[in-house]
């Protein structure tokens, strides 16, 4: 039984190598972590540290070179198309570029309708479907009536990400992986998106894996933080532990790199990289 604290998703020595020979990249390097039901976890690291690759491994979008993934305490099996579709009912993702995740030729109401049909659409009457879609839109503070007959490109980046969250609301997966969902949208809409993710967790019990290069967002949002550097987890703990009392120099740098208001943002310590 799901008692709220059981193991939701776990990986052991997860490794991903891209390419071969001289062009080999060790993108994820023996990562082990355990995420509990209803937990909010952040994975923080600089660009190229392997965050997106880790997300793809957890989502089953790419094969690990080594290592195991456990879902709800059992070894994950996505060896057949049917099993994979079953797994994807439990785990969903939102990516950095919301426009890339949508079929631009499908109207927004159809996008939402697909979500309902994917669950148990066959037995749901039409009025009930409309009610569910309206409910999903109001969950993200949008009006269903304003979205009907529109195409994704008619929405702003912030509205698109909210639509993605409305999709997740309808699909009701156990886990949501949000990979830099706010880095391509306005700082002004960022708070709105983060608060909607928090609401998804609080009201729907969605386990949230939040991926970012901005440790400030991780601090605001999450209970547990994993710091990723060159494919490895180099530090982890509660958000307070890791961000208020960081141990690794790398973590300290990630914190000091975020511009602040009340604390000094020291430019004199910046070392120009040569790559």
């Amino acid at each position, binding site marked *: 039984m799901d008692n709220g604290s059981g193991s939701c998703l776990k990986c052991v020595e997860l490794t991903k190598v891209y390419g071969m020979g001289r062009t080999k990249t060790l993108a994820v390097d023996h990562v082990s972590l355990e995420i509990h039901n209803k937990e909010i976890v952040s994975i923080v690291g*600089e*660009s*190229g540290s392997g965050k997106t690759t880790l997300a793809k491994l957890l989502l089953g979008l790419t094969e690990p070179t080594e290592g195991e993934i456990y879902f709800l305490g059992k070894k994950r099996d996505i060896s057949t198309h049917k099993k994979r579709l079953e797994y994807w009912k439990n785990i969903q993702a939102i990516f950095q570029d919301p426009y890339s995740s949508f079929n631009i030729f499908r109207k927004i109401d159809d996008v939402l309708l697909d979500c309902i049909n994917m669950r148990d659409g066959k037995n749901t009457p039409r009025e009930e479907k409309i009610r569910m879609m309206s409910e999903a839109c109001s969950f993200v*503070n949008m009006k269903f009536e304003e979205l009907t007959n529109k195409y994704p490109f008619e929405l*702003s*980046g912030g*509205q698109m990400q909210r639509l993605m969250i409305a999709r997740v609301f309808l699909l009701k997966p156990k886990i949501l992986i949000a990979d830099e969902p706010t880095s*391509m*949208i*306005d*700082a*002004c*809409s*960022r*708070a*709105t998106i*983060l*608060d909607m993710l928090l609401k998804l967790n609080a009201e729907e019990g969605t386990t949230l894996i939040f991926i970012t*290069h*901005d*440790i*400030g*967002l991780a*601090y*605001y949002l999450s209970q547990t933080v994993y710091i990723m550097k060159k494919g490895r987890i180099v530090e982890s703990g509660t*958000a*307070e532990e890791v*961000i*208020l009392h960081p141990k690794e120099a790398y973590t300290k*740098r*990630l*914190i000091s*790199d*975020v*511009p*602040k*208001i*009340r*604390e000094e*943002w020291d*430019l004199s310590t*910046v070392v*120009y*990289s*040569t*790559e």
Partner: protein
Amino acid sequence: MPKVLLDVNELSTKYVTRFHEDVYAVDRVSLKVEEGKSLGIAGESGCGKSTLALSMMGYYFPPLHYVSGDICLDGKNITKMDPDVIRRKILGTEISYIPQSAMNALNPTQKILNFIQDVIWAHNPKATKEEILNLAKERFKLLGLPESVLYKYPVELSGGMKQRTVIAVSVILGPKVLIADEPSSALDVTSQKMVIKMLVDLMQSGFIKAMVFITHELPLLYNVVDDIMVMYAGQIVEKGTADEVVLDPLHPYSRGLMGSLIVPEEGMREQKLIAIPGAPPNLKDPPSGCRFAARCKYVIPQCTKIHTIDMQELGNGRAYRCIFY
């Protein structure tokens, strides 16, 4: 009296679209940037920041059109200058603009050195390859960029390095004023800080004499520029020093922006963010009166009854556009 390098007075511009639905993207904007100073422009996407940047350089190529107002660059009125002349004689040498997506617009089949040659030859066709190479080497060294970058293709460079290269090239003809449009928004925090340090160094070493920095990231602006203007739906709604605007915002919109900042500082987790509800108006048909009224929690009937709301000047460059406060 400090010299004013960029002096924009009541400038209005618009986009003329095919279906005669004009977009009034810049509405009566006034600003001054003195020698040695940097100005930040903040505001959510679509409020007209990039259009303002083009407009204040006199860069009026269709669909962008001049409507009214004046622009003085280093004492010279450039308002009525032919945009083609501006492109040849002013851009790059007097004022330089780094567009929002510049680093992704580099020609992928061209090495950085060839890109620099093109930039210099467009301005001075007589420059020799050797002169250009020497200048490029000298500049790259000065700005902390490895010389090897000159011989690389854009794909071989990281995002941060590409952006630093773009900045180095944008100032290679020695402009007085640099306008940087969201130069770090696509980068991770570490590369962002390098890009910012480079811009700050350019200012501090006197390499450029003034800077306009455009971004929607307020904590970043706060740490980089002297003065800040907040833009909303084509208009300036507040201006002042960085301290004044960030620590003591007057306009309800600016206050809303400050209320939704996320920084890794103790106490942030306990803070309730207050996101501004709703969306900005369509600039094809902006509402009369206060353009923020529909989203403002302090709104009173006069806000939309008065046809135009003027800036309330408080002296020393501090001003805001609100009748309630």
